[in-house]
């Protein structure tokens, strides 16, 4: 019995010693500590995310046998050539980017005064209440919100009913690109408000006081102090609104009209309808490139510090 206790003690001591040695080794070599902490997420990131992107990019250079849907592993630029030569795909790409840009600008214009009020004017209580208001829609299903807009915008919907009551002519915007622009702007608005708010809140009050002391009126302070300091927040928000719109394919199906395809819809159709993964992959490269360029510009404007 005593011997057993001794053995248990010995094991405990050994373990303790091993742990100390490990701790010492990590302390002596900080890079080892960093490596062991970072490698799991980095590995997961590389395997799951980067590898998937690379696979996508590679398959864009393959083709598909139209009859059997088998991949043909033969390197060719055919998919990209089709994309370039066929005006329909150019129209789709331009439409997608244009609407994404329009949505981003709209959201920035709406979000700025809202976030400004939240950050600098509202009382603590009101601010909390406004936060709930901004975040509440995010708890409801995306689809439910899109369908709700359909009820508002359609011919016999809330919008036309209200216009009629006001004695105005009906707005015929259901199932159109205008409708998509409105719905996207609504859906992604919280993603713009939050970073703009974060940026505005971070501006020290002393800056504004200093500006005032130096004789700047409200407009001047806004232009030369607040806006430049809030800009990274706006750009950070625009990354969300732009990329989320750029990658969407559900709203175009539900809200769009006869000419409302997005890049995502063409990709979806080529994978699901034609079993033509390579062509879908080739088209999917377009938003990746657009987003890459966008992020480079955003970094220049300091958006990443605002996140």
């Amino acid at each position, binding site marked *: 019995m005593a011997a057993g206790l001794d053995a248990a003690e010995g094991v405990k001591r050994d373990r303790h010693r091993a742990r100390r040695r490990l701790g010492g080794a990590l302390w002596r070599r900080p890079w080892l500590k960093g490596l062991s902490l970072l490698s799991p997420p980095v590995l997961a990131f590389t395997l799951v995310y980067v590898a998937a992107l690379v696979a996508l990019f590679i398959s864009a250079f393959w083709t598909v046998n139209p009859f059997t849907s088998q991949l043909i592993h033969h390197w060719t630029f055919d998919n990209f050539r089709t994309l370039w030569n066929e005006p329909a795909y150019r129209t789709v790409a331009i439409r997608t980017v244009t609407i994404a840009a329009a949505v981003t600008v709209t959201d920035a214009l709406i979000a700025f005064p809202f976030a400004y009020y939240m950050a600098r004017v509202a009382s603590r209580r009101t601010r909390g209440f406004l936060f709930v208001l901004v975040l509440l829609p995010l708890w409801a299903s995306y689809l439910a919100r899109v369908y709700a807009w359909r009820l508002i915008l359609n011919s016999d919907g809330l919008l036309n009913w209200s216009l009629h009551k006001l004695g105005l002519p009906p707005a015929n915007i259901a199932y159109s690109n205008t409708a998509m622009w409105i719905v996207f702007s609504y859906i992604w608005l919280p993603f713009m408000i939050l970073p703009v708010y974060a940026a505005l809140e971070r501006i020290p009050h002393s800056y504004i006081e200093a500006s005032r002391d130096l004789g700047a009126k409200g407009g001047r302070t806004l232009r030369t102090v607040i806006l430049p300091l809030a800009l990274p927040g706006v750009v950070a928000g625009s990354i969300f609104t732009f990329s989320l719109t750029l990658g969407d394919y559900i709203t175009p199906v539900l809200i*769009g009209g006869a000419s409302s395809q997005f890049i995502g819809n063409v990709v979806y159709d080529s994978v699901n309808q034609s079993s033509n993964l390579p062509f879908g992959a080739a088209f999917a490269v377009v938003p990746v490139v657009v987003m890459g360029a966008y992020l480079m510009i955003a970094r220049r404007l300091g958006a990443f510090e605002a996140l």
Partner: protein
Amino acid sequence: MTTRSMWALVVLLAVGLAFPAAGVSAQRGGTLNMIAWEGYLQPQWVKPFQKNTGCTIHQKYAGSSDEMVTLMRSGGGDQYDMVSASGDASLRLIYGKDVQTIDPTKIPDYKNFGPAFKSPPNNTIGGKHYGLSLQWGPNTLLYNTKVVKPAPTSWASIYSPQYKGKVTVPDNPIQIADAALYLMKTQPSLGIKDPYELNSAQFTATLNLLKKQKPLIKKYWALASDEIDLFKNGDAVIGASWPYQTNTLIAAKAPVKDLVPKEGATGWLDTWMVSAHTKNLDCAYKWLSWISTPKVQAEQAVYFGETPVNSKACPFMNKLAKGSCATYHANAPLKYFKQIHFWKTPIADCGNGQKNCMDYTKWQQAWTQLKG
């Protein structure tokens, strides 16, 4: 709000948006893994089958014919045992060697099938049966009786500017055949014999008609519920439809009617097909026999709003829903079927010895480019 909690929020949201639908686990044994249209494997007739035969059914609903083909070919083709393929998928499955021939004489109710459904060209090739016809329905012309006056008699209504901005047609490449059928009747000089077998010139003429139609279109509908919404809310007053939408709209007291116009119509005919790689052929035959019995045929027809191929199903239909046999033309004379051109996959082989017809890939590309 701190930066960190904002990130947490964004991540949470992204996870919510990206979470994929759970797949079907492929189990073996006395089981059938089936790909079907939504509503085709209702407990109402699946449960008694499982109880009677001991065969278990695992279902996977597909949203389009193209998805069905993709699924049947996934994992080397041995993931699924059966598929309820429509005519625009069946030939692809047959020529792709994804499905096997069946012996209809082993199906007791086969002899009761309407003559048009025993060996239709979308599942029978050279006398070989690659599946058993199931249910069918026409693609009808649906219109709002309050707005569209006089009542339309021709498909010309959806190609003329009279109802500009109020027209809706399905978002489906096979819709090209509807336009081809219209041209077949109105422009005989093009020489279209079969709306699914179009040579280059005929194809171009058809696409030109569709391009001219595009400015009239309110929306290319993707889901039946989309079209129902369009008609309910007055965003569309005329369009191509299925009887299902008509019945749903009439049940909701919407002022609509549908018809098969004088040019005839396209239609779908679904076929239960058996995978070439199935390990459960016994269960598959049991399912084919079960699903073609008059009572089950009637149950499915009434549930889904389509027409059974078994001519003995009528009394059962009327028992389930009064007058449904006549509503769905289950007792219609042969003349009625003659005007329906059932969906079949367009292939390069024109059927007249020439191989210069536009195949389905071309149809799909043209459709995507048409929508632009």
